[in-house]
């Protein structure tokens, strides 16, 4: 018997009827508006939250926030101003990207996280290797908690996807919070008014 068969045989001997799978219907209660909660939480975890009226405004706000020159890569078709980025033959070439700009599906108010799938990342390495990250979502796409988030995600298709909540961080040295552990040093979330 190989290991697979051995392990499975032992598990089979311990199968028991037990309980059914519970339906995880536990909607949260934010006690405040979704947008207010999102802003408070995101600021609390070291992120920035700004509003933009339209795509031209997104460009303007980003230029104001990141005045120094650098290598900017963008994966949003509507933002023609910036260099568009696709899957890279070699992700290592993204190492000098100062700002990555991409669209997320939605944000979660209770924890400030943005759900983003690999088709929105250009290259999967981009949201982790760039020095600063800006994510754009429609203001109407804010969900209260992870319960609603997974209702949305449950049957969706993706190759790779991630929740990003704020900038990369660590508190491994005496519990002092430091932003920019390995990934982006800042995270800007842009809430786009319905267009």
């Amino acid at each position, binding site marked *: 018997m190989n*290991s697979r068969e*051995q392990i499975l045989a032992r598990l089979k*001997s311990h*199968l028991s009827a037990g309980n059914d799978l519970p339906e*995880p219907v536990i909607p949260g209660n934010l006690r405040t508006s979704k947008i207010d909660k999102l802003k408070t939480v995101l600021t609390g975890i070291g992120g920035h939250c700004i509003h933009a009226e339209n795509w031209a405004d997104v460009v303007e706000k980003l230029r104001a926030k990141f005045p120094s020159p650098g290598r900017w890569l963008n994966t949003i078709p509507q933002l023609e101003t910036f260099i568009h980025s696709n899957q890279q033959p070699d992700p290592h070439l993204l190492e000098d990207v100062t700002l990555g700009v991409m669209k997320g599906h939605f944000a979660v108010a209770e924890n400030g996280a943005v759900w983003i799938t690999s088709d929105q990342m250009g290259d999967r390495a981009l949201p982790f290797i760039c020095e600063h990250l800006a994510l754009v979502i429609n203001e109407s796409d804010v969900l209260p908690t992870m319960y609603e*988030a*997974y209702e949305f*995600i449950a049957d969706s298709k993706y190759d790779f996807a991630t929740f*990003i909540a704020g900038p990369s961080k*660590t508190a491994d040295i005496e519990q002092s919070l430091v932003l920019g552990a390995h990934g982006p040093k800042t995270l800007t979330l842009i809430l786009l008014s319905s267009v």
Partner: protein
Amino acid sequence: MSSAPTIGEKQLDHAELAERFNKDEGRVDWHDQTLWFIRNKRDKAAQSLPEWEELREAASRIKSNVLNNLHDYLIDFERNAEANGITVHWARDAQEHNEIVHSIIQQERITQVVKSKSMLTEECHMNDYLAKQGIEVIDTDLGERIVQLAGEAPSHIVLPCIHWKKEEIGVLFNKHLGTPEGNCDPVLLTAAARENLRTHFMSSRLAITGVNFAVAETGEIVICTNEGNADLGVQLADIHIACMGIEKIIPQRKHLGIFLRLLARSATGQPLTTYSSHFQRPRPGQRMHVILVDNGRSERLGSKDFRNALKCIRCGACMNTCPVYRRSGGHSYHNAIAGPIGAILAPALDMKKNADLPFASTLCGSCTHVCPVKIDIHDQLYKWRQLLVQDGHVATSKKAGIKGMSVVLSSPFLYKAAGKLGRWFMKNVPKLTNNKFNPWFKQREMPEPPKGSFRHWYRENRKK
């Protein structure tokens, strides 16, 4: 590198290692307070959700269902993962796990790999094994890198270097990373580690990660980090090896909505880790492996008393709240996983070697109260004690003491006489109790002996 401190051949037990940690009283207080601070953050996060108890109950019940049907869920996971282009391996024990990892690395002719946090690879002592084969593993989690540079094992599953002071890290980084002497600013030290580890991310062709959750229904794995080190390592590598214990399975993707709400809040009081990444298919051109490791888990599933320990999602809340862990330090548990959960997991792996751990507890029950998946930790500690005594793994002195006590407590005459004698000796020959041979005298003064017994006091006072 990851073995516990020993003198000669003898493995020191928890009490001896704790005593060593307790020599520096200031450090014990600091360690205790740091962990209590995290426990408080957890409380605030938990109390901010009115549905917290409902979430714990649901998580616990989902995990019960997983344990009852693990055989089927693993087969589902394997089928779905392979359909996604992931190679699935099965390892019956630590040795086989290490051999599988090694054979993959060998095929690629690689000598250096990056690794993000994985308690399973600690359990298997994988770094040591690979080092012997000439392969260097670079731990990329900052805390793990710190203990790795120091030649130590992590002392906490979530906060690997919680026992290190920043001044000491400053000295360590000055030696290994060339940071300015005497500088212990966490911002500067973190920046130095970032710069150094970035070169490893850039040059490593293979990344090893742990797994927080593996979804049977979709064949995807989920990895949670704050630093982004798992993602950076994987996305820059040609090969990704993810190592997981077989109990990490959850049935459906939507169950993550329960577990992710509990995990980070229980661990550090954060609403969510910075990154919760879902790996469903390898990146184009990349090879991805998942190793399913048993290492005693299927055996334990057959034990009614102890199987629930397999529900653990490795948040570390039981350590942060434990009065013994906070004052004895993670290394006193001489096991990859310390604290209350480590103390009930370790004896299942090696009863003789870890017979001391279930006794490293006051049975106060705080661990059980904070556990996000409702494991009956303190009950299991108590049950392990009984089993260990039964099987003869407990020191004869402890056994003799308890036997003697049982004789005295079952005879009113002996009990009365013993009380009288005790009071007399404490009053007239205090040296007899106030000495280093009496474990109750350690780090505390003995109380004033009472004038009479409780029975005497009660008789006097009932009349009034």
